[in-house]
C-alpha cells in the first residue's frame, strides 16, 4: 500500500530522471568500476593481484609523476584564480571596447586543447615567438629553453592551460561579481573602507560559492592534465595521466588502470577535503 502510494506520488518523477540515471550508471559509474576492477586483476590469468600496483609504484618516474600532478594543480590553480579574478574585475567596469575585450578573452574557448598545445609551442619553443621578441628587444641574444628545468616546464604547462581555460574562469567570476549588489560597496565607501578591506570583507565572502565552483572544476581538470604535457614537454615531465596513457600504449591495461585509479583517488581526496573544510566552515557559521 505504501509502495503504491509512493509510486503514485513519485512515479512520474522517477520515469523522468530514469534516462539520466541509466546514462550515468552505464557510461560513467560502470566504466569507473570496471577500471578499478582491471587494476586489481592480472591481465593474463584474470586472478586478483596487487602486482599491477607494485609495478606502477615501483617505476622510477611514479613519485615524480605524482609530485608533478599536484604541483601543476597548485601552480595552475593560483594562476587561473588570480588572473581570472583580475580580468573579470576589469571586464566588470565600463570602458570603450569592452565588448571587443570580452570577445578576445573568450576566444581560446573554441580551440581544442591539442591545438592550443601546438599554439603554445609556437610561443615557447626555442625558435618560438617569445624568444624572437626577446631577441629583437635585445633582452636575450641566445634562445632560451623554456622547458629546460622541471619548474620551468611546470610553469609553461600551467601558462598554456591557463590560456586555454581562462574564458571559463573569467565567466564564472564575472557572473559572481555581477551578482554582488553595488549598494554594499556604496555603504562601505560611506564608512570609509579602503579597497583591500572591501575586497576582503565584501567581495571574497560574496564570491565564496563562485570560488568553490571554480576551484572544484579547475582542480579536477588540472589533476588529470594530459594533452599539454604530451605536446609541450614529452616524457621529461611525467604526470599520472601520461603514465596511464603510456601503459595503455604498451598494452598493459592493468597498469594503465592502476594509474587511472590512483588519479581518481587523488581527485576524490582533494575534492572531499575541500568540501569538508568548506562545509564545516559554513555549518560553523550557521
Amino acid at each position, binding site marked *: 500500500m505504501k509502495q503504491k502510494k509512493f509510486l503514485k506520488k513519485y512515479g*512520474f518523477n522517477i*520515469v*523522468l530522471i*530514469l*534516462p539520466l540515471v*541509466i*546514462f550515468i550508471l552505464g557510461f560513467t559509474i560502470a566504466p569507473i568500476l570496471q577500471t578499478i576492477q582491471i587494476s586489481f586483476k592480472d591481465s593474463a590469468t584474470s586472478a586478483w593481484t596487487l602486482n599491477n600496483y607494485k609495478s606502477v609504484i*615501483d*617505476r*622510477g*618516474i611514479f613519485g615524480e609523476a605524482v609530485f608533478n600532478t599536484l604541483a601543476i594543480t597548485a601552480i595552475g590553480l593560483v594562476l587561473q584564480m588570480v588572473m581570472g579574478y583580475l580580468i573579470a574585475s576589469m571586464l566588470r567596469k565600463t570602458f570603450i571596447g569592452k565588448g571587443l575585450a570580452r570577445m578576445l578573452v573568450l576566444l581560446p574557448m573554441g580551440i581544442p586543447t591539442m591545438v592550443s598545445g601546438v599554439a603554445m609551442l609556437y610561443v615557447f*619553443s*626555442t*625558435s618560438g615567438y617569445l624568444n624572437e621578441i626577446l631577441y629583437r628587444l635585445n633582452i636575450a*641574444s*641566445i*634562445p632560451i*629553453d623554456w*622547458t*629546460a628545468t622541471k619548474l620551468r616546464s611546470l610553469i609553461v604547462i600551467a601558462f598554456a592551460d591557463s590560456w586555454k581555460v581562462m574564458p571559463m574562469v573569467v565567466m564564472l567570476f564575472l557572473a559572481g561579481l555581477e551578482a554582488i549588489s553595488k549598494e554594499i560597496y556604496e555603504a562601505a565607501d560611506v564608512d570609509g573602507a579602503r579597497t583591500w578591506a572591501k575586497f576582503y570583507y565584501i567581495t571574497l565572502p560574496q564570491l565564496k560559492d563562485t570560488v568553490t565552483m571554480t576551484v572544484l572544476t579547475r582542480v579536477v581538470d588540472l589533476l588529470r592534465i594530459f594533452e599539454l604535457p604530451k*605536446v*609541450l*614537454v*614529452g*616524457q*621529461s615531465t*611525467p604526470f599520472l595521466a601520461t603514465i596511464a596513457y*603510456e601503459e595503455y*600504449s*604498451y*598494452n*598493459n591495461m592493468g597498469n594503465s588502470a592502476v594509474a587511472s585509479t590512483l588519479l581518481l583517488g587523488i581527485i576524490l581526496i582533494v575534492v572531499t577535503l575541500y568540501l569538508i573544510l568548506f562545509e564545516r566552515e559554513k555549518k560553523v557559521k550557521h
Partner: protein
Amino acid sequence: MKLKKTVAMLIAAVTVTTALAGCTASGQQSGSSDTAAGQESTGDTTTAGNTTAAVQKKDVTLNFAIPLAEEEWHVFRDQIFKPFEEQTGIKINGIQMENKDMESKLEALKQAGKHEIDLFAPSTVYLPGIVDKDLAEDLSGSISIPEQIPKNLYSEFQFDGKTQFVPLRPNVQTNYYYTDRFEQYGLEAPKNWNELLNVAKTLYEAEGVGRVAIQANSGSALTITTIEFIRSAGGDPLVLNDEGSVAAFTFLQELWPYLSPESKRADFNVINELLATEVIYYGANWPYCSTVVVKESGKDQVASYVGFEGPKGISKVTTTTVMGIVNGTPHREEAIQFLEYLMSEEVQSILFTELGWAPARNDAIGEIEEWQRPFIEDVQEALQYAQSRPIVPYWSDVDKAINDAFKDIVIDGKEDVQGILDGYHEQIEAAKAAKGE
C-alpha cells in the same frame, strides 16, 4: 496538466529508446566497420572492374587486415588488389585494422570458430603475442621468398624454426644534415661518436643552442634511438646493464647538453618539422623525411647518409611490416598466392614509387625522380645494417625500462649509470621470469 505529463513521458520514452538504439547501433557498427571497410574496398574493385566477373576463375574472397592511411588505401585498392583480382579472379577484401588490435581480434575470431580474416600484416613488434597464441599458419616449405629480399629482413621472424611471416615493408632511418651549415662551420657528416659529439659541440658553441637533435620523445621513437646506440656499442637492449649499454648511456649523457632542446619532444614528425624550419641542422629520420624536407619544403641543401658508427660498428633498427596467414583459414593456397604477389617486383615497385615505402626487394626501385635517388640509395645501404627490435613476449617491460633509464641517466643526468642500469636489468629479468622465459 495531463497534456504536459503526456508530452514529458513521450520525451522520456524517446530519450531511452534513442539511448538503447545508440548502444545497439554502435555494437553493430564496430562489428561491421571492418566489413564496411572491406565492402568499400570490394565495392571499388567490382565497380571499376566489370571485367572482374568475366575472368573470375575462383569464387574466393580473401580478407586482408592491414593498418593503412587513407592515401595508402587508394594505392592498395586501385593498383595492387585490382590487378591481382583481374589476373587470378581471387577477390581481395581490405580491412583496416590497427596493429594493437590484431592479436585480440584474431584470438576472438579463433575462439568463436570464425574465419573472417585470411591474411594480416602486423608490425614485428606485435609478433610474440600472435605466435604465442598460435594465430598464424606455418608457411615453412609452402611459400617461396624471392632471393632479392635480403635474408636479414625475415630471418628473425622464424619462431621455433617455423616460417610464419614474410616481409612486406622494411623501414630504416638514415641521417639528414644541412650541407651548407656544415660547410660554414668546417664540419663533415659525423662518422663515429667522437665526431658526432664534436659536431654537436661546435654548433652549440657557435650558435648558442643545440642544432643536432635525436628522437627522445618517450615511446617507440626514443626506444629506437637508444637501441641503435646500445647495439652500436656492442650492447644488448634485453640486458641493458652490459658494457655496451653502459657505454651508450654514458655517451648520450655526455652528448645531451649539446643537443637541441627540442629533442625532448622529438619524434619522426617533429624531426621533419625541425629540419624543414632549420631549427636543427642534423637529425635521423625515416625515408619520407626527404619528401617533406627536400621536396615539399624546398631544402635542396639537405643531404643524407647512412649514419655514424659506434665503438662496435653501425647499428640500425628496422621496423618491418610482415604478412602472415591466419591459422586455419579455408583459403590457404590462395592466401599464399597473394602473399607471393605482394612480394613481387611489380608490387614492391608500386609501393616504392607511389607511397615512398622502402622496398623489401633490392631490385624494386622503379622510376624515381633524380632528387630522390641519393636518399633511396642511402636507405638501401642502411638496410644492410638493419636489425629489428627484439621480439620477445616481455618487450613492453623492456621498452619501459629503456625509456625510464634514458630519462634518469640522460635527461636527469644521474651519475651512477651502472647502478641505474643494474636496477632496470632486474626489472627486465623479473618481467622475463613472469612470462616464463
